[in-house]
């Protein structure tokens, strides 16, 4: 169609329409009003803060934070700056939100596919779980899991032991960790990247090479380090090794079950949107149900699943802010502690908002790419 018209369109190009001055004028006016409103609000706030002798501005980020953040991947001491405290908080938010998203997706797909099962009991159980979890507020679920874990786990002086490798107590799950300096870790890290990549590249034999690669990587990490840090029971509970605290555990479990229930409904909608004819075609071809789902139904359902799934991921990331109710030190907890110490409410809350905005924009970007690949292409 395009090729036939271009020859004649070069000679007889239609005239460009005149500029719609009224539309442009009104939009410029509206924009000017919004900008003026924004500028007036900021100016008003600054004047009021200065009149009341309240410090303003982001200069406090360089000051010493003075409070502790007791878990996380980013090394942090109370003598570090506020900026580093916020970075540790963001790392903790990601450390809770990302596993929750991954696990919720797995749970959601499992429950959603169970909803279309032939067996009534499977459908009933899945429906029951989804309805129960979706109707209870997330904060209540987080608190329930946290209180359940802290009440039911064994006391910190008498943990459950798995030889001397893993200890389970109210203080969390302590796992023995290898002690590696940066230079010692180079070889295992290199192998962790190289071996799976090689297994992936050997495409015809992927079914065998990938599990083998996984075993090799695990073996390397278990055998390479020659000194391990084992958890041990001290004066005040278990210390040493890597710790998964009950706070992290309760938050991730509650987020997983809540987002998993919502994901289940999204997946169910996607599966039911695939035309009946596709199922009948798979029966005609003699595919088993798992084969039919994997090769025919689920790929077609993705175009319906991905847009609401994007919202679900964003909501899970934002819901992780409930961490502050159970003492998990995420960015909201770090920023509100800073707010209480220096009184700069507007700056600290803006930082929290900016962090979540950034995380969600990244999510939208990534899911936009995924969506472009699965959406219906009209010709």
């Amino acid at each position, binding site marked *: 169609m395009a090729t036939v018209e271009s020859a004649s369109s070069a000679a007889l190009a239609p005239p460009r329409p005149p500029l719609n001055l*009224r539309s442009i004028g*009104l*939009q410029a*006016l*509206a924009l000017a*009003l*919004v900008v003026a*409103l924004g500028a*007036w*609000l900021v100016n*008003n706030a600054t*004047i*009021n803060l200065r*009149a*009341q*002798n*309240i*410090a303003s501005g982001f200069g406090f980020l360089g000051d010493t934070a*003075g*409070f*502790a953040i*007791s*878990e996380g991947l980013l090394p942090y*001491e*109370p*003598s570090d700056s506020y900026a580093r405290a916020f970075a540790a908080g963001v790392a903790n938010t990601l450390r809770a939100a990302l596993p929750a998203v991954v696990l919720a997706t797995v749970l959601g797909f499992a429950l959603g596919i169970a909803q279309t099962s032939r067996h009534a009991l499977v459908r009933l159980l899945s429906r029951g779980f989804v309805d129960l979890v979706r109707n209870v507020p997330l904060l209540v679920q987080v*608190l329930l899991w946290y*209180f359940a874990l*802290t*009440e039911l786990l064994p*006391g*910190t002086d008498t943990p459950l032991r798995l030889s001397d490798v893993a200890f389970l107590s*109210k*203080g969390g799950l302590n796992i023995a960790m290898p002690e590696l300096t940066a230079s010692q870790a180079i070889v295992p890290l290199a192998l962790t990247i190289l071996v799976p990549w090689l297994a992936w590249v050997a495409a015809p034999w992927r079914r065998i090479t990938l599990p083998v690669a996984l075993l090799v990587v695990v073996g390397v990490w278990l055998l390479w380090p020659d000194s391990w840090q084992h958890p041990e029971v*001290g*004066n*005040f*509970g278990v*210390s040493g090794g890597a710790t998964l*605290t*009950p*706070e992290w555990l309760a938050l991730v479990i509650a987020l997983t079950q809540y987002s998993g229930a919502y994901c289940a409904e999204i997946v169910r909608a996607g599966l039911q949107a695939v035309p009946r004819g596709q199922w009948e075609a798979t029966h005609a071809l003699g595919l088993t149900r798992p084969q039919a789902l994997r090769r025919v139904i689920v790929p077609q359902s993705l175009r319906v699943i991905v847009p609401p799934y994007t919202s679900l991921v964003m909501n899970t990331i934002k819901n992780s802010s409930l961490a*502050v*109710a*159970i*003492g998990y*030190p995420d960015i909201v*907890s770090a920023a*509100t*502690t800073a*707010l*209480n*110490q*220096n*009184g700069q*409410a507007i700056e600290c809350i803006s930082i929290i908002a900016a962090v979540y905005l950034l995380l969600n924009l990244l999510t939208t970007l990534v899911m936009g790419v995924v969506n472009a690949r699965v959406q219906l292409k009209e010709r």
Partner: protein
Amino acid sequence: MNAAFRLAAVCASAAAVAGLTGPVHAGKVVDSIKQKGAVTCGVHTGRAGFALADSSGKWSGLDVDYCRALAAAVLGDAGKVKYVPLSGPTRITALQSGEVDVLARNTTWTYTRDTSLGLVWVGINFYDGQAFITKKKPGLAKVAQLAGATICVDSGSTTEKNLAEYFTGHKLQYKSVVFDQIEASQQAFISGRCQVYTGDNSNLAVLKATLLKNPDDYVILPEQISKEPLGPAIHRGDDDWFAIAKWTLFAMIEAEELGISSSNIDSLKASSSDPTIKRFVGTGDDLGKFMGLDKEWSYRIVKQVGNYGESFDRNVGADSKVKLPRGLMNLWTKGGLMISPPLR
């Protein structure tokens, strides 16, 4: 035409909303109190001895008594108080924004809070310090022995910073679990998630007396790692309100020093000839007029609320469940720190 009209309507309503908000004024608090008919008092969400509402909604406590004294002085009736329960993280902002007239919420008076937040403290009504409560262990007596413990803390107070500074200054390791609700942190300590709970000594005493199933298994370590002078605070910038708030607290302390209590004030009013007492009960020189109040302002405070000693005893002292000793909260004449400048 339709789209243009809608766009104009949106712009007009945006402008109208902008016009409704104006800059916040910090003065003339007394006028607004008289107009509202009640003192709006920011208090704790629920701490026995300081501010706690019972099942019928009636508030009682040391800070509550201060609010009632203010109402008695300014409005004539100690019952004309509106209580606003505030959590740790929100209390400062509530006072800064003018949502409450006074913050009587066992808030520590510190240099930073007094200068950089737009607030000013009116005095000290409780001398506290940060202490630690933990399960009794043989030989456990000093804070330095708590190295390696998991400590529950409440967010939004000086507690967190003091804890970090003390432990890092003494090179002691610890793990902290920070909650924004006091109930959650105390519950975590009671369930055994943390081995130690830290907070103001009065807070720990209330916890031990009222919330623990077997209080004798626990010990509050006698070492206090910080001084926490607690007192009411108001918004900076209103000198009239500052004078009233300050002298209300002083009047309660001065009454105890003069021996005036709610039970004998009427008989003293009828029969005393001491000029100091006569000034206080409203039969002598009029002192209230300098603050814009009538001459019976101090009489009403003691008659309706009591003097400082009475308030202390019934809320946190000998007549209460908490049974804290007067200690530093005793009069200066009896070895404590409570002193009022003379009312003359």
